[in-house]
């Protein structure tokens, strides 16, 4: 009859294999992208380009990647994602290999700025997070956080790898090697990527099927009241604006620090470049724990919006410490506080978006909210540069973006999660769900 009492070790839920595969995909993808900086000096020296010229290719890549994200999200929603991610990986791998043939800045701008950057929108975190949201419900934030932390780890391993590879060989060989590494993710994607648990006769989280005749059984079981079929519907409701608004602030507060933290530490706080870089590296290292911790706590304790508001609040406290504590200690405290919140916010925002709006249009919705994040980032960096030129200090721009964290925290906290999130819906009595 029933084997629940048999001493059979429960198999690993297939969703974790999907999670592991997307982890490696994110790892190699972000590694190949972040490694571009390694190639700036040798390529510039060989072709006589200046820093601005080569930066144009990178800038073009950022813009193309940001703009194409919602379109790839739509493809993801319509086709399921598997084919799109695999095709993107193949294009990304071949494109990276072809960078070894660079002979002119226009070739680099076309290959890196357009072809590779478009291909990177396929396995982008917004899409892999949407994929994780289909496979996980109770452990959704944890799965998304594992994916997000893979991006940090990818940068930490792949960038030094590229540096040493470049030292051992040449930039052309290094691009080929990076491209081949990207292509190693293709078989893994072919083997493990499946679009939804139903494809393998499973339920999200590996839960048992709901009892026969339960209300709402089917695709809409336990769905939230705002679950949407198209992204347009979501933008007629409040939570998406609350999340996109706070995500915009997330972009402003992270981009501005990524660019201006080291100059601020050197010029305003009087530390050496090496110390400033160490503090910044330490902050980036804490990303991993912040992302994993946020995902775990959100799933374990619940109240995703509360954790999101907390992440914005502690980042705000970090800004306050940075501006009021005029010493190296202030930099370290800021790095510790802000480091934990750096990647926690995207994890929690992605998870909450899936909980509120369901997974049918999640790729597009996540792609659009990601654009808000990027717009905030671009605006804040330009504003900070402008205000620094006018005032001669970073105090005013940092105070402005830091102050935005208060409304961001309030905006996140005011989301009616209990009303709208699928986690709090009780349509189906699911004994194993633990909601």
């Amino acid at each position, binding site marked *: 009859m029933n084997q629940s009492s048999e001493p059979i070790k429960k198999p*690993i839920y297939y969703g974790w294999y999907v999670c592991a595969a997307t982890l*490696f995909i994110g790892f190699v993808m972000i590694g190949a992208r972040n490694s571009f900086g390694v190639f700036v000096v040798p390529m510039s020296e060989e072709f006589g380009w200046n*820093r601005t010229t080569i930066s144009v290719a990178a*800038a073009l890549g950022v813009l193309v990647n940001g703009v194409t994200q919602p379109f790839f999200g739509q493809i993801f929603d319509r086709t399921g994602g598997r084919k799109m991610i695999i095709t993107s990986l193949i294009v990304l791998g071949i494109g990276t290999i072809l960078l070894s043939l660079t002979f002119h800045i226009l070739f680099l701008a076309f290959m890196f700025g357009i072809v590779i950057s478009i291909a990177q929108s396929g396995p982008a975190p917004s899409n892999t997070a949407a994929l994780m949201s289909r496979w996980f419900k109770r452990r959704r934030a944890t799965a998304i956080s594992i994916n997000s932390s893979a991006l940090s780890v990818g940068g930490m391993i792949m960038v030094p*790898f590229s540096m040493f590879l470049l030292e051992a060989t040449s930039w052309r060989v290094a691009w080929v090697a990076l491209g081949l590494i990207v292509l190693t993710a293709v078989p893994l994607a072919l083997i493990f990527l499946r679009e939804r648990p139903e494809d393998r006769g499973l339920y999200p989280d590996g839960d048992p099927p709901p009892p026969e005749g339960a209300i709402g059984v089917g695709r809409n079981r336990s769905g939230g009241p705002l679950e949407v079929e198209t992204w347009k519907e979501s933008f007629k409701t409040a939570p998406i604006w609350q999340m996109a608004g706070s995500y915009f602030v997330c972009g402003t507060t992270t981009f501005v620090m990524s660019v201006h933290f080291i100059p601020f530490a050197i010029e305003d706080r009087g530390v050496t470049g090496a110390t400033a870089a160490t503090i910044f590296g330490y902050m980036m290292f804490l990303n991993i724990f912040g992302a994993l911790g946020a995902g775990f706590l959100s799933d374990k304790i619940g109240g995703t919006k509360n954790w999101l508001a907390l992440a914005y609040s502690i980042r705000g406290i970090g800004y306050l410490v940075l501006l009021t504590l005029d010493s190296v200690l202030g930099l370290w405290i800021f790095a510790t506080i802000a480091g934990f919140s750096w990647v926690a916010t995207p994890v929690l925002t992605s998870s909450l978006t899936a909980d509120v709006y369901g997974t049918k249009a999640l790729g597009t919705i996540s792609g659009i909210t990601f654009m808000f994040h990027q717009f905030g980032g671009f605006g804040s960096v330009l504003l900070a540069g402008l205000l620094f030129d006018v005032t001669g200090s970073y105090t005013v721009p940092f105070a402005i973006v830091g102050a935005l964290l208060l409304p961001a925290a309030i905006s996140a906290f005011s989301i009616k999660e209990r009303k709208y999130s699928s986690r709090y819906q009780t349509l189906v009595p699911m004994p194993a769900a633990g909601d």
Partner: protein
Amino acid sequence: MASFFSFILAHQGDSADPELLHWIRERLDQIFGFGPWVIVGAMSFIIFCIPMSIIVVYLMQANRRSASKPKHESNSAEGQEQEQLP
């Protein structure tokens, strides 16, 4: 204009700053003191271990399941996985 483009290289989600990378490499050289090929080999091993370990765990589990299949043919009714080897 130059500063506008240069900030993009410094963003954490994108290409790392070349000067920062140079500094990191020097620090790594100081700490490990190995030649570049040793580090490339070690890092390649780590990178390839990730997909290989995922596949190995999956195959081990699939083998274990197929070995116990005749005894538990009715597993599917409980929402257990019905996986085949890829």
